[in-house]
Each structure stands twice: as structure tokens, then as C-alpha cells.
């Protein structure tokens, strides 16, 4: 079963310390690859670079930046394929970001056939 691990962290803290923390994140991803469970993943650029689009009354509108000021924002994700939620939670606990922010473990719908 596929699970998406969504990583929420303090955006400023994450940007400042990115370089120092990268080796942890790479080791973590490497462990998932070697365990044969890794599907995909990426890290996202800082929240300041985000743009929102919404269609209002039939017209697309662009809204700048995040709507609300929240401390922890989505900073990256991994998709893993493991037998069950217990296993997914074990891997989420190993995510270096779980000690600073929170890792949301979300099951993915199987693709429609």
C-alpha cells in the first residue's frame, strides 16, 4: 500500500539549516531506497516562492503567497510502498524532520483502473 509522508517544518528554520541537514535527509532516503520501499519524493522550495491560483466567477485569479501565517509548512514529501500503516509509521519516525516538525502519514488511493 502506498503512503505519502508529508513533512511539515518551520520554513525559516528549514531554509537556514538546509545544508547542514541534507546529509541526514539523504541517508534517510537512501535507507528507504535500499529497503525497496521508496517510490518517489522531493523537497519543496521555501514558502515565499509559492503562488496560489483560484477560479472565481469563471476567471482565474492569482493570489500571492500562503493564505495564513503558520509556523510549520509543507517542506517536502516522500511516497513509500509498504504493507500497512504500522510499517509506514515506523519509517515516518525515522524521518529526521520528525524531530523538528511533524510528518503526516497519508494513505494514497490506488490508481483507478
Amino acid at each position, binding site marked *: 500500500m502506498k503512503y505519502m509522508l508529508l513533512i511539515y517544518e518551520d520554513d525559516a528554520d528549514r531554509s537556514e539549516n538546509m545544508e547542514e541537514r541534507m546529509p541526514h535527509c539523504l541517508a534517510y532516503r*537512501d535507507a528507504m531506497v535500499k529497503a525497496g520501499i521508496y517510490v518517489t519524493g522531493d523537497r519543496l522550495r521555501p514558502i515565499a516562492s509559492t503562488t496560489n491560483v483560484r477560479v472565481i466567477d469563471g476567471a482565474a485569479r492569482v493570489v500571492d503567497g500562503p493564505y495564513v501565517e503558520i509556523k510549520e509548512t509543507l517542506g517536502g514529501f516522500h511516497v513509500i510502498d509498504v504493507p500497512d*500503516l504500522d510499517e509506514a509509521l515506523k519509517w515516518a519516525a*525515522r524521518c529526521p524532520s520528525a524531530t523538528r516538525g511533524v510528518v503526516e502519514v497519508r494513505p494514497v488511493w490506488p490508481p483507478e483502473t
Partner: protein
Amino acid sequence: MIRSQEGEGHPSGRDASARALAEAVARRSYGRLVAMLAARTRDITAAEDALSEAFASALRDWPLRGAPDNPEAWLMTVARRKWIDATRRHRSAEDSLPHLQLVADELGAAASGGRASADERLPLMFACAHPAIAQAVRAPLVLQTILGFDAAAIGSAFLVSPATMGQRLVRAKRKIRDAGIPFEIPEPEEMPERLEAVLDAIYAAFAEGWSDPATDTRRDLAEDAIWLGRLVVSCLPAEPEALGLLSVMLHAHARRDARRDADGEYVPLDAQDTARWDAEMLVEAEDLLRRASALPRTGRYQLEAAVQSAHAARRFAGRPDWEAIAGIYDALLALTDSPVVAVNRAVALAELHGPAAGLELLDAAADERLASYQPYWAARAELLSRAGDPAARDAYTRAIGLASDPAIRRFLERRRAALATAPSPA
């Protein structure tokens, strides 16, 4: 449960003291009361519900009328009434009135203290750790029924979602009721196997508490597990494995403070300052092991305790007794065939015969269960590094990627960085 009872009426001095008393009684007697109710009703959920209603009544009643002289008897009497009401409401055709009456009478006798009984928590533990109950839920079930933890706290400790843990506990309790799992201490011929399941459940709880001492977000279960271990030993003082388990837990717990340095960094066993080990706890652990050794049977927990004891010998001898440790791991491996034991044995033999011998054993132990086992990769990295093999770097990286404790992650990183002086492949 008592924790969920909040804000009834205006807070007053009397109210607060009644709540404090109810909480104290809950801590002291929750498991005992659940056990007394469940042993007679054979239904843990019904027992917990009745007791929880009794605690709610206590919080309403005690501030008005003053606390009773014997709070436990008061709670049992009320819980008995609540159980009778609930059973009458939900009674199905097959529950006969005479049966209900019989159970009600037994509960009444227990409430008035008319029947001097041995500790009923032990039979309840045997029901929770019955072979018919899925292994993964035995420890959570014991923690809930004996200590009154809620599903969310237990789920968090065992890294399972609260909803899933709640479902598993409900299902297990239903199974105990519907399958008629007995609330009894097993017969002598069944005892070793059945006791092992109880001890395994306690050790699982202990390990959850112990593996992550740095964070306060997960509840530390080590002390609760030791408390359960003491309860079993007090009920079964001549069971060598019960003594062995308590000895193992006390040995490990005695080193608790020494596992972190002043900066909160992880300190491995062989680098720990023995002066920071809890000497009193170690004396008790050694005494338990001696008592176990005097009894005719040997088992896994006695052997584990003997390993701990040989490590503790470093206090006096300056070095652990590696010959003894290797020998005990031989016996443990023969007994359990556990890949984790195989890893520990390889590390011990590397101390005696050098890193190459240890690595050979690690290769032989390679098992898919070890592929994501952090200590396996850490041990491998350590031995490769001692052997001067540049593959140590990759093994450390693998262990770092698998670590969930940030202090251990930093420790492994320091070890990997220390390799930098050695030549490494480009």
C-alpha cells in the same frame, strides 16, 4: 477513565481534594478493581465501563458527602450496581437471571471484602497475554487493563495510530469475552509457556519505554513495566524467568542516566561512566539473578540478565567479561534463533577474536529482518571501521538513515566523521 473526568460543578477545596483522592485511588487500585470486576463478569470492557462510571459518581458524590472510609469498597459497590444496570439493559435471551444474580453476589462479596483473595491482577494478565490473543496487542492490553492507560497513549508509545490501537484493544477484549478465555493462573504444566507470553508483553512495554528516553512526547513505559515485573515476581516468587525478567529490566534501567552525557548526547554502553550507574538497582538486579539461578530451570530472561550482569562486571574488573558474554549469547542463540541475538553475539565475539571474526558472523546472520534494523548496520559499521575497511562509511550512512533517535543519529554521524582521516574511495 479518571483522567477524562473534568470540571463538574464549581472548583472548591473539597472538590479538589475529592478529585485528588479519586486520582490517588485510580493510580493505586485501578488495575485491582478492573481485575476484581472482570474476573467475575468475564468481560473486561463491561468491567472498565462500570468502573469508569463509578469513578464519575465518586467525583460527584465525594465533594458533597465527604470521601468514604474505604474508597475501593465504595467504588466496587457502585461499579457492581452500574454493571447490573448495564447488564439488565443489554441482557440477551441466553443470559439467565440466576447467572446475573450469581455474579452480582460474587461482586457484592468482593466489594465488602468478604472474600480474601490473592492478587487478581495476575489472572487478568494471563487472560490478556493468552495465546489466543494476537501477540502485538498483548502488551497494550496489559497496560490498559492493569494500569488504565488510554488507547491514544498506548498507541503513541507503540507507534500505532490511536484509532488502530483503540480497535485492536476493543477486538481483543471482545475475543476474551466471546471465546471464554479464563481469568486464571495456569496449571503447572502450562505455566512456562503461558508465563513467557506475560513476560514478553511486559518486556515489550519496557523496551518501548527504554528505546527513546530523550523525548518527552512518548510516554516512558520502563518504570511501569518494572512495576508489572515486580507484581509478577511477588505473585510467583519461585518462577525463575519472572525473576530473570525483573533482573534484566533493573540492569538496563540502572544505566539509564549514563546513556546520555551532560549535553544530551548518546553514550554507548562501553563508554559509559560506571559511577553513573544506579548501584542500588544493580544490587537488586544481581540478587534476583542469583535467586533465579538457584532454581532448576533456565530460560531466555535469565540468560539476558546474565549478559547484563557480565557487562556490569566492568564496574569492578575494568572490562566487561566478554568470554562469559559470548558464551551466554551462544546459549541464547540456540534457544531463540533470533537475528537480534545473532548480531549481539557477533559483536561479543569480535571483542574476543577481532573484527574479521565478528563480520563473518554478521554476514552469516544476514536476514531480511535485519535489513532495516539500525543496530545491525551500526554494529557492521563499527566492525568494518575497526578492520580498516572503507565500506564502513556506507554502513554508517545506512544506520544514520534508519535511526529515529536524534541523539543516536548524531552519535553515528560523529563515528562516520571520525573515519575521514582514513583513506576513503573517491
